[in-house]
Structures are given as C-alpha cells and as structure tokens.
C-alpha cells in the first residue's frame, strides 16, 4: 500500500508541475482532472473518505465541466468556432 501511496504522490507532483506547462487549454484541464482524481485516491488512502468523495465529484467532475464550458464559450475548443 505504501508503494501505491508513493507512486500517487509522485504523480500528483508531476501533474501539478505539468498543468501550467501545457500549451493547449484542453490538455491543461485534462491534466488538472487527473491531478484531482489522484488526490481523491490519496484522500481515501489517508482514511478520509468524506474528502475523497467530494474531491472526486468536485475536482474531477464539476470543476472540469465548468472549465470545458468556459473554453467552449471563448471558442478555445476545436469545432466550436462557427457558432
């Protein structure tokens, strides 16, 4: 279990560093989503399932949806130019 924790911690740091370095906003949001998902697993490994559930729903789900909506509104996604 401790190995999994280490892997997750390293990937969290990698994701956190990678997110602002991405060129495309869409990739950025997806990397951020992955960060939230791994944080959720980490919370549940740290024995706080309350936080894990909220993190999975808010961080990986709703924040990303709101980001995607914003990207769609400012026409930063492919295929949303002609609206």
């Amino acid at each position, binding site marked *: 279990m401790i190995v999994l924790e280490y892997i997750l911690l390293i990937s969290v740091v990698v994701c956190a560093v990678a997110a602002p370095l991405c060129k495309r906003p869409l990739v950025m949001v997806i990397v951020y989503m992955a960060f939230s998902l791994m944080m959720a697993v980490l919370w549940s490994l740290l024995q706080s399932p309350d936080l894990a559930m909220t993190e999975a729903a808010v961080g990986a789900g*709703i924040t990303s949806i709101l980001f995607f909506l914003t990207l769609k509104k400012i026409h930063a996604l492919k295929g949303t130019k002609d609206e």
Partner: protein
Amino acid sequence: MSNGPEKQDWRTRLVSWVDGDREPKDQSLFVMEQRHRRRFLPTEEEHERREKTRLHRFFNWYPVAAVFIALTLVTVLLGTVLQMPLFGQESNPINNEVAEHYLEHGEEDTGSSNAVTAMILSYRGFDTLGESCVLFLAVTSVMMLLLKDGEDEDGKLARRSAREADQEEHGDIILKRTAWVLTPFIFLFAIYVLLNGETSPGGGFSGGTILGAGLILFSSAFGQRNVRVIMDRKTYSFIRTFGLMLYALLYGAYIFFGANGLPNYLAGMALLIDLAVGLVVACTIYGFYALFSTGEI
C-alpha cells in the same frame, strides 16, 4: 497676514452657507487661476511608437517583477512556516482536550456516530451555515449576471425551444446511452450518501455534490427542457431558499434546545440538517452549470 478680516470672512461665509447661499463671497480663495488646458495630440505614428515602447518596456520588466514578488512571497511564507511548531509533536497546541472531547462525547452530544458529521453539522454548525450562505450568494450573483430575461421578446422562447429540440435530436449517442444507464445509479448513490451522512462517510456536501453532478449529466445528455419538467426556475429558487431556511431554522432550534446542560431532544436532527445542506449544494452546482452553459435554469 491679518487674522481679523479673515476670521470675519470665514464667519460671513459660514453664515451665507447656512443661509443657503452656495456662492462663496470671496471667490479668489476658491477659484484657482484658470489656465488653458494643454492640448496635446500626437500623430498616429507617434502614438503607435510610444505604445510599442511602453509594451516593450512592460514585457522587459514583467519577468523581473514577477520573480521578485514570487521570491518575496516564498521568503515570507517559508519564514512563517519555520516559526510554526513541528508536525506531530506532543506539546503542540492542537493536542488538547478539545479533540478528545469531540471523539469521546460526540455520539452522546450530537447523536451521530460519524465524528466528522458531528463536527461539521453540530459542533461547528455555524461554520457550515456560513458556507451554505456563501454558496447561496454565489448562485444569486451568477444569476444576476448571467440570467436571461424570461419574457418572450420577439419569439425568443420559440427560438430557444427550437434550438433545444434540435439539440435533443442530434445529441451525442454515446453520451445519451451512458447517461441513460448511469443517471439512476448516480441519483441513488447521492441519496444514499445524503441519508447516511450520520453514520457513515458522506453527508450534505458530498451527497449534494453527487446529486448536482447527476443533474448535470442528465441535463447535458437529454437537454435542459427535460430537467425543467421537474425543476423550473420557480421550483429551483424555492428549493434553494428552502434548504437554507431549513438549515437556519433547524440549527437555531438545535442550539436553543440542545444548549449546555439541557438534555438533547433532537438527536436525529443531523439527518435533516444534512438534507438541507445537500439541497443547497446540489442546487448551487446545477445552477452554475445551467447558467454558464445556456444562461437559463
């Protein structure tokens, strides 16, 4: 400088001001010497060149200033952290009798066997009340900014329903099928988490978030018209306000009846408070999605 006349002057001016005369008697004190304003209109090229140099200078100095500010902040924060007590030591100020009391007497004090729920909803219920108010106000301000008028101006409503019908017909088939399978289970899980907040992990915030996420999935797959069947704008506002009011009322009663020394008659109340928080949170999340995507609820 003669004091007398000036004082006199000041008095007469005050009197005339009280009498309602807005013009000062001695104009020279107030009206500065009028000078022609300098009219300075650079030519187009000159203006452009100047803007360019300004931008250039800005971009030259920007990284320097950014690094400087970041370094200053890092120094201040690190200095603060170094002053703090070390992690996990027994003599730390957080290791006092409060946590022990919460863990030992939480169940008999609040009637909920989940220590986290006992903490969030009972011991520190005012904190949660404030958070609910923040969510409520956030949705209210987003509504003020983004909500479109509900009045039918030049066939707006007709156009909207036409667009929605088009969206429903040509929606993504994968999304539709997935949502068709997943949505009931998401709602079921949300209700389970909401109702079991007292005894197991979960509670108002998590359950409400999952409920809101399920609503978002449903509305993005099947269109907002189908959500509007069960929850139009009036119902939405009613549920939102009802949740907050229920929380305030219940928590007020909770404090009033369950105060220090009185027997706790309201052991099962955490469940209802959980439900109220869940309603507020779910409405907040769905409201954000609906307002950001179409500007309507």
